[in-house]
């Protein structure tokens, strides 16, 4: 296990180095002046330019510049945003909780709906229930998220008037920013309308979460179903039955544990798709998160923000992938030997 862990950590370190190299070189690859791209400042006077080139060590070799870049990243100096002239790290940390919140709830829904439905679908693969679940899964899997999101808005917001079209909470509720996680912030806020605010936030969460969870749910569903069908054909299941364990015990001890192992890994792999889809969902629902911000930055040609946003999002995705990988290995001793 230790050797495996070390191997993984090395890989992780390598990926991060490659990522930071890429992010670093973006400042050179983007069109425009390198100083503007690095600092995010609009107008740089000649004296300032000298100061800044010294600060960014532009007169040194690329390697020294890269080391200086890493030092700045770790010390929290991510430059300032072109459009708002605010420190980027501050903007990013302010926005990230909103994205994590959305992606987190969506993942929860996928797990709590996708996996049980997958198991149900595996009961009788030829049955009508199983077939309809599979049909639903294929529909959900192949649905363009933009279309799906707007369809839901059209039905539930504009048609029925049940749910809001956009945002995290009705703008009239004044929720002080604490952690950035809206439900938590409402919980800790000192406001008279806590219950209403909470419900209102849930209403705002519902559509984006459903839209975002559609794809991962269907993937998990199909994966669980296949994995379950696969496991039930294994000899050890039959052995377990023969030993006299009752059906519940067989399913719980032998069936599920083995069937769900690959699913755990799949959840991790879904995370990167989830983050990508979260960006689109954020745009559809004007969700004030990292994805919405990054897409706006691309539109505004806000190079320092694109650079920082990419770094942040890739870090989140890589870390999530790596941790599910470790979790998978922890539960599955076989994987350590591979």
């Amino acid at each position, binding site marked *: 296990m230790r050797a495996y862990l070390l191997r993984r950590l090395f890989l992780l370190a390598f990926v991060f180095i490659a990522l930071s190299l890429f992010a670093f070189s973006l400042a050179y690859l983007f069109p425009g002046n390198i100083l503007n791209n690095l600092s995010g400042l609009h107008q740089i006077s000649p004296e300032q330019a000298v100061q800044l080139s010294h600060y960014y060590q532009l007169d040194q070799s690329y390697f020294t510049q890269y080391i200086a870049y890493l030092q700045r990243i770790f010390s929290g100096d991510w430059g300032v945003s072109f459009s*708002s002239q*605010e420190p980027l790290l501050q903007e990013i940390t302010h926005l990230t909780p909103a994205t994590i919140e959305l992606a987190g709830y969506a993942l929860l*829904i996928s797990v*709590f*709906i996708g996996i*049980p*439905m997958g*198991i*149900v679908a*595996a*009961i*009788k*693969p030829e049955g009508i229930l199983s077939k309809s679940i599979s049909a639903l899964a294929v529909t959900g899997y192949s649905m363009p998220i933009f279309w799906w999101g707007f369809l839901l*808005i059209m039905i*539930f*917001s*504009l048609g029925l*008037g*049940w*749910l*809001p*079209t*956009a*945002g995290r909470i*009705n*703008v*009239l509720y*004044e929720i002080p920013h604490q952690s950035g996680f809206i439900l938590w912030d409402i919980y800790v806020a000192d406001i*008279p*309308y806590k219950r*209403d605010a909470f*419900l*209102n936030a*849930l*209403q705002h969460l*519902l559509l984006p979460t459903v839209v975002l969870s559609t794809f991962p749910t269907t993937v998990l569903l199909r994966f669980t179903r296949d994995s379950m069908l696969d496991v*039930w*054909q294994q000899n050890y*299941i039959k052995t377990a*039955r023969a030993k006299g364990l*009752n*059906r*519940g015990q*067989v*399913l*719980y001890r032998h069936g599920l544990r083995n069937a769900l192992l690959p699913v755990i890994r799949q959840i991790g792999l879904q995370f990167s798709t989830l983050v990508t889809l979260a960006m689109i969902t954020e745009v559809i629902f*004007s969700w*004030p998160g990292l994805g919405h911000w990054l897409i*706006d930055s691309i539109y*505004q*040609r806000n190079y320092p923000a694109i650079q920082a946003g990419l770094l942040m999002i890739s870090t989140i995705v890589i870390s999530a992938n790596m941790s599910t990988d470790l979790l998978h290995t922890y539960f599955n001793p076989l994987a350590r030997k591979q």
Partner: protein
Amino acid sequence: MNLNQDLDINNNIKPAFSRIPAFSRIVVLSCVLLSCVFISACQPQLPEQFNSSIVYCTEGSPESFNPQLITSGTTIDAISLQLYDRLLDVDVNSGEIIPGLALSWQVSADGKEYLFTLRPGVEFHHTEYFSPSRPLQAQDVVFTFNRISDPDHPYHLQGAYPYFQSVEWSELVKRVSAVDSHTVKFELSQPNSSFLSTLSTDFSAILSAEYASQLLASDTPALIDSLPIGTGPFVFKEYQKDVLIRYYRHPKYWRGLAKPEQLVFDIVPNNARRMAKLFTHECDIIAYPRVAELKLVSKRADVDIQESTSMNVGFWAFNTQKPPFDNVKVRQALALAINREAIMQAVYYGHATAATSLLPPTSWAYDPNLVPTEYNPIAAKALLTEAGYGKGFSMNIWAMPVQRLYNPNAIKMAELIQADLAQVGINAKIISYEWNSFRRKLTNYEHDSVLIGWAADNPDPDNFFRPLLSCSAAITGTNRANWCDENFDQLINQAILTADQNQRRRFYWAAQQYISEQMPLVSLAHSQRFQALNTEVKGVTINPYGGISLANATKEKL
């Protein structure tokens, strides 16, 4: 055999599942949770304390919280009338200048000295970041205007007062001083009949000198433009960029409490989304509904459309310093070559009046004798031949990437013009950049011609001519035609030197005649201004002279 085994196993699973309650529990639990949210979702009512709150959905983020520093209508709408007061106001109905923070004023016989008596007991905002110790005094007014004109002032920002630059404020105002605690004296270098109008615009907001000195003491002067303190009906609470601006009513407002307790500007740049939010009652009022959708929207029982003639003009300006546009015949030919009727229908959907002059017909200086340039490609062609361009030429048309009050769809308009120009042998290319770069490049005069416009800040006709076509505007960059003509400048300067309206009108008529001969730009249309609101919202009207005031907005449950 295999198949049988499969079936066998599957048959075995079924009862096994029914005995495992954990999963069914999870499924049931998730369903219950979801339906809970759905059921709660069926009542999108807000708590009662929000009944007196208003959500105005605006189309963009403000650039600053100080109206002196900007000219954009979006920012003016969001901040100017909500946070600040001016010395003078404009009567929305008559267009006359009426007292604001100044109770009364006197003009010296030579028209060069103005004395304003301030209203006593006007309170500044009390916020988390500033507690005023005294009401409004003359020194606040002095601070406000000295900041603009005095380059040595600690708060002066070089080149940051676009409106005041366009009216040549620094050359006009020699000195602003406090005579006593409630009297302010303005000394002008020459008489100026539009001076009072300038003081009544949304840009002439009065700031607090006490707040400024407190910020200076804590070495954070820049905050004066981002954490605002004014005397207006609302107090600033929070701003989240691209998300919202939140105001609460000013408890000690001198005109009496504002009706909405809370006022939120929800920033929704997307037109369709703003409309959707109006339908779901997430917005009470929305800015600039799309003209193309007005018919559809007006069919809904829960939506009111307000319409008002607004002081604006959409035009097509030629860069008169560049050949062939330096040739007056070419400019006249271009004006003749375009089919204005088609533009009025396809771009404005009939919600605008065709322009014959820069001034809208509602202005007192409008010249009714002007006739619109006819659509006559044959005459255009003849003129081009006369000017030596019989074979035509290539040019570009810059079209704004954004919707503006005076031009809802510049790109479509450019396409129509492009087709018309092709008829007379001119090959036109349409160019559009992102809005900020567009304006920057325009100020550098990189264009051949541009479709843009102007919305007036005050009812004075000078507000159309000077910022758009004077020589000084050509230097500051607001003169999109890059046109500097001595005769024209003389006319508008003479007009402003006299206080007699009849005399002024004669000069302005001459100026309009001169423009229609010289054709540095083709005035196309004066658009109506629209806003859409929920029927339960009352007390909001469109101000034809600029920003929107929401102090009297109420919601009446139907």
